[in-house]
Each structure stands twice: as structure tokens, then as C-alpha cells.
């Protein structure tokens, strides 16, 4: 057998091996990046969550099993932050959806100003969260805030209101800031959804004598449901994980009234220097978010079916 014949016999095998290896090689760079920036940190934080890891004791990290989880979940902070997060998330998501829907319905009309509003409405969403937090903080300042000034000069209030220093008002203020920040994105989503609904359906409904409200309730809303679910999933996650606005506007106060679960995790790590608790809490937050996403996705699949 000559050399040329041997190579002729081997080449299909080589080619087969190459075909097998090539896909793995192709994804290897991306896999390495993901491993470095996602898999390794997750595994490392899992390791931390199972050990006592207090930064002021850098040489002692004994294995503690699930104690970090039980201590975190059993603490006052957890109960408080779950309640605060629940109220905040429900109110903020509902607010964002209602605001987004109303704005989208307006933008979908042929009103002349709709074009300008389309641009302006995106501004709050484009502003970084920290900046918008600062804007709201100054706007709501109890001593020299613009809102207090306006209400006072209009004669609506006799005394300046400490918006961010009263537990209930501080929560409401945060929710409003979140709606202002996130509402525009929801509006754009809804607008895209509205523009996908064929005009003929509306025309037919009008010929059949349908009023605005009935058309909205029986045509617009059902056809917007897929968009609504996307907005619901995204905004729920955003609300649960809200951190920047709290850090700037209230720092979790007054009296822990705005200490959302994300703030609690931050405080455990950066204020209490307890990385074990902080990591355990991060996994709990991830689990809560995961459960919600699964629930939403199931609902979405049911809709699609």
C-alpha cells in the first residue's frame, strides 16, 4: 500500500474527528468566558454561603452547612425585607403596567403631540438609576424640595411634608420613582404590541357598534396579553432587585421601612461584613426570582397554547 493510499484511507476518519471536535472548539472561547465570569463566581459564592465568612476574621472560615441560610431566613431583617419587597413589587409592577398602558394607548393615537411625547417619554428610562434617584431625592426634600415648594405655593399644603422621613410616604415615594423610571420602557413594549394588532379588527368592531371601552376590554387587552406577560416578568424581576434608587433616596430608612431584600443583602455584605450571610441571601433571592419566573412562564405557555 502506497503512502497516497494510506492518507486516502485516513482522511475520512480525520475529517470525522474534526467534525466532532469543531463544535466544541467553536463554543470553547464563549464557554471559558461564561465559566470565568458566571460559573466560577456562582460556585464560589455557593462555597462561601456554606462557610462562616466574616470579613473581620479573615483567617477563620469553618464549614457551617446551611447555618447561614437558617440564620438569614430566621432574622428580623429577612421577615421585614420580604414584607417590604412584596408591597413594593406589587405596587410598582401594577403602577408600571397601568402607566405604560395608558401612555402607549395615547402614543398609538393620531394626536399631533404623540410624536414628541414618544421621544420625551423615554427620557426617564434613559437616565441612570442613581441620577434619577438623586432627582427624586431633591424633588422630595422635606426642607427645600421642589414638590413641597410647589404644593405650598399653590396653597395645597400648610407645612412641608417629610416625604422620605415617614415610613409610609417613603415607601410611596420609592414606588413612584420606580414607576417613573420603568414606565417608559413598558410603554414602548405596549406600543409595539398595539401596533401589531390589525386595524381591520378595530374597524369591524366599530361597524358592529363597539364602544371604546368594550373594544379595549374585548380586543386590545386580550391581544396584548403576550406583551403584558413579558412586561410582567421583566418588571417583577426589576422591582425585586431594585437597589440603586434605595441606596440614593433612603438608604433603607426610615426605620428600615424601605429596606428591600436587595438592600438587606447589600447591608449584610458591606455593612455587617458577613459574606456568608450575604451569599446565602443572594441564593434565596435567586430562588424567589426563579420561582416567579417559572410561574410566569407557565402562564405564558398556557396563553400560547
Amino acid at each position, binding site marked *: 500500500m502506497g503512502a497516497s493510499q494510506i492518507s486516502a484511507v485516513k482522511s475520512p476518519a480525520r475529517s470525522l474527528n474534526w467534525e466532532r471536535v469543531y463544535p466544541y472548539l467553536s463554543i470553547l472561547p464563549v464557554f471559558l468566558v461564561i465559566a470565568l465570569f458566571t460559573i466560577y463566581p456562582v460556585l464560589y459564592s455557593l462555597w462561601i454561603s456554606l462557610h*462562616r465568612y*466574616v*470579613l*473581620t*476574621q*479573615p483567617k477563620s472560615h469553618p464549614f457551617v452547612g446551611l447555618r447561614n441560610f437558617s440564620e438569614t431566613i430566621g432574622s428580623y431583617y429577612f421577615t421585614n425585607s420580604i414584607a417590604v419587597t412584596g408591597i413594593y413589587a406589587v405596587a410598582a409592577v401594577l403602577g408600571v403596567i397601568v402607566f405604560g398602558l395608558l401612555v402607549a394607548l395615547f402614543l398609538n393615537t393620531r394626536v399631533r403631540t404623540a410624536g414628541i411625547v414618544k421621544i420625551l417619554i423615554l427620557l426617564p428610562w434613559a437616565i441612570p438609576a442613581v441620577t434619577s434617584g438623586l432627582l427624586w431625592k431633591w424633588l422630595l*426634600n*422635606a*426642607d*427645600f424640595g421642589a414638590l413641597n415648594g410647589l404644593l405650598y405655593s399653590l396653597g395645597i399644603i400648610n*407645612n*412641608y411634608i*417629610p416625604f*422620605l*422621613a*415617614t*415610613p409610609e410616604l*417613603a415607601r410611596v415615594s420609592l414606588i413612584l420613582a420606580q414607576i417613573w423610571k420603568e414606565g417608559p420602557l413598558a410603554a414602548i413594549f405596549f406600543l409595539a404590541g398595539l401596533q401589531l394588532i390589525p386595524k381591520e379588527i378595530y374597524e369591524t368592531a366599530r361597524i358592529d357598534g363597539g364602544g371604546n371601552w368594550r373594544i379595549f376590554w374585548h380586543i386590545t387587552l386580550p391581544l396584548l396579553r403576550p406583551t403584558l406577560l413579558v412586561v410582567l416578568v421583566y418588571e417583577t424581576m426589576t422591582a425585586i432587585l431594585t437597589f440603586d434608587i434605595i441606596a440614593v433616596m*433612603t*438608604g*433603607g*430608612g*426610615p*426605620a*428600615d421601612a424601605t429596606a428591600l431584600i436587595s438592600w438587606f443583602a*447589600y*447591608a449584610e455584605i*458591606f*455593612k*455587617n*461584613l*458577613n459574606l456568608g450571610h450575604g451569599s446565602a441571601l443572594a441564593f434565596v433571592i435567586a430562588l424567589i426570582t426563579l420561582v416567579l419566573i417559572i410561574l410566569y412562564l407557565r402562564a405564558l405557555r398556557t396563553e400560547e397554547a
Partner: protein
Amino acid sequence: MRPKTSIRSLRRLGLLFVALVFLAFGSMLPVGAVQATNLNFVVWSYGIETIQSNIQNFQKLNPDITVKLQDYSWLQYHDTMVGRFTANNAPEVLYGSDHWLQEWANAGWLEPLDTHFPQVKEYSNDLAPYALQGMTYNGHIYGLSYYADTIVFVYNEEHLSKAGITKPPETWDDVLSQAQTIKDKGIAEYPIILAFSQQEGASIEAFYSMVYSRFDGPGAMFDEKNTPTFNKAGSAAAQTIDWLKTAYDKKLLDPASLQTAEIDQVKSMQAGAHTFTIFPQYNLAELNKPASSDFAGKFKMALMPGSSHATVGYVRFYAMSSAAAKQGQATLDAAWKFLEYFGGKTNGKYEVVKRWAVENGLGFAQLPLFDDPDVAKAFGAWGDIPTIKAQAKLARIKEGLTPWYGSWDVFTRAEVQKAILGQESTADALKAMADKYTELSTQ
């Protein structure tokens, strides 16, 4: 033929580019230049222009050292530095505070100065005892003082005279009754403001000072073994919280106090919105700065109301990170030169410390500066020197300073707020604070 020409041209262009790069970089290096030692210096945002000017002066004296300045908000400083330390991104030199010294030293983030620079102990005799204590942990000195100050009680004299009040309050009951008179006469809607935001790191010092002023001697908050004493029935801390709640309920204390940080506090005092406040003494210099407001010059300091008039003395200092110590002798030498220039003497004088005192009204730990005529003149422009000295003599370090003090402080801020708001009783708030301290001590 064309492609060959293009390749040649490209090669020539490439060579030309490389030569230009070498020329450009070469021209930037002075002949016989010595490699400079770089120090990263991290501070909280206050007096940045003065710091930059001080750095320039330092670099003129030490051309072989370059200093790169970075600043963070005071409200975020602790957390940001924790992040940097944990990420092995510590600067060589930085601001520290007695709040966090034990926490940071215990974590191995700060380096004891006397280990490397035994000469630092020569400064100890010049320092106010509370300041030296605040920079000492486990018998080692960790800093040279940037400034040391007291928490003081300040009032708007014009408000008092409008209300027909002839002398400032001497007790906390006096504060309430005078505030009520001022409110009733419509001079100030909320005569008292405090910076008690949950984010305000100095709020614990204001709270402590209110407790100390009601108590004679040490042991108002913790005993010498760091066992909580504040949770005993009828303690000075309990009286303080009850007083705060009364002031809040009677609308004498601005409810916004629970979200007010130091800068807002100073601004609203300048605006004449309030009569009484408690804050670090240097803010009085800011309040009385000519043309800063219509009330400039009308803000006066009185001894902290209460039976003992005691208050908190605290220290902020220049520290060196452990990361710097690992970089070798060149960095250590540069760091010492830096620390001594900023917190020690240059040509036999506390130049930088004095500059802060004269230009910004910052208090100081270096007792000889009290005899400096320039300092006396500058302090006299905004404050009453005998009262300043009398209050400084009554200043004491914060009790209970431990590696977990920072975490306890954060917890305490929320508990005090809950008691003020009536969400829990004073006794429950104090019990929670004591339990937390014990829990943290066993971690």
C-alpha cells in the same frame, strides 16, 4: 508590480510609525529620570481643592513621589472601601475613622504604623487622649490625625432673642421648653434638627453625645469590658431616646431629621429654618462663614446640655493599608513621608493640620495648636474659644469600639428611629441594640 509596491509602502509606513512611537515616548522621559513611587490616596469628599493643593505642595518637596487622589461620598465611604479592600484594590494611603479602625485592622486591611515607623510614637505626647485612643488598637498606632473634633450643641442666637430667651439651654428640658416657645411664637416650625438619617455615619456620635451629657464619667454606654450598660432601666440612653420621642411627638424635632444627613442639616440651619442642632464642631465655621447666609455670625455654641455637659470627641486620620506594606521599602518610605507631611510636622510645624484648622475650622488632635495665634484668630472668627476649649476638655471617645462596632452602629440607627417613630418602646429598642452587640461579639 503594484501589489509589491503597496506592501513595501506599507512596511515603510509601519517602520515610520514604530520610530515615531519610540520618539514620542522617548521624549517624554527626562534624561536621568528616577522612577517615581506612586501612592494612591483615597478620601471622602470634603475640601478636595485643599487636598489637591496639599498634594501639590507635598510633591514639590518630594519630587520622587507621585500621589493620585480619589474621593468618595462620606455616606458611601465605608462600604466602598470595604469593597476595595475585599477586591484587593486597596490604596496605599487613605482616610480612616475611629468608627472603623478595629474592624479594618482586625480584617488585616490596615497596617499598624508603629511596626514600620517607630518614630510615629513621638507624636503621641502632643495628641488629645481621645484622639490617640481612637487611632490605637491592640496597643498599636494606626494613624496620624487628619482632624479631631467634638460634637457640639449649636443655637441660632437671633431666634432666641426674638423669642425673648436670654441664655441658651443648659439641660435637655430647657431645650424642649425653649423650642416650644420658639415654635409657639412662629419663629421656627421645627426648632430642632438632627442628622439622624440611616445613612449618616456621624449620627451615632450625635446620639452618644446626648447620652454622655446626661451621665457623669465613663460607662454611659458600655463598661470597661465592653458590656452594654445603656439597656438598663432609666439609663442615660433611655432618657435620650425618650427625649427624642417627646421632641418628635410635640413637633419640635423636624421629622425630616430621620432622613437628614450632615450637608442638609447645615443647609437648613443656614436657611434659618431651625434653632437648635448637634453636629461636628467644624460645621459651626461653615454656618458663620461671612455671606454664607443671612444668619452668618448668629450661630453660637453652648456646652452640650445636660448634667455633665460631656460630649463625644472623635478622630479621623491618615492610615496606611496592609497592601502598601507588602509593596516593599520604597512604598513604605514614601508612605511615611506622606503620612508625616499630612498628619505630622514639616519643618517642626503641623502645617497641613493647621491649614485645615485655619481655612476650614476643622478641629485638631495636636494640642500645641491651641496656642497658635493664627488658629486662635481663625477660630475666634466663627466661635467662642473659651467654650470650644471647655467642650474639648469634656470630650470622650466613643465607648464600645470593637471590630463589630461598625455593624452595630448601622443596626442602632434603625432601632433609634423605630423608637422615635413609636414603632417600638424605648426599652425594646435598647434591648435589641444590646442583644445585637452581644450577637455580633460571638460571631
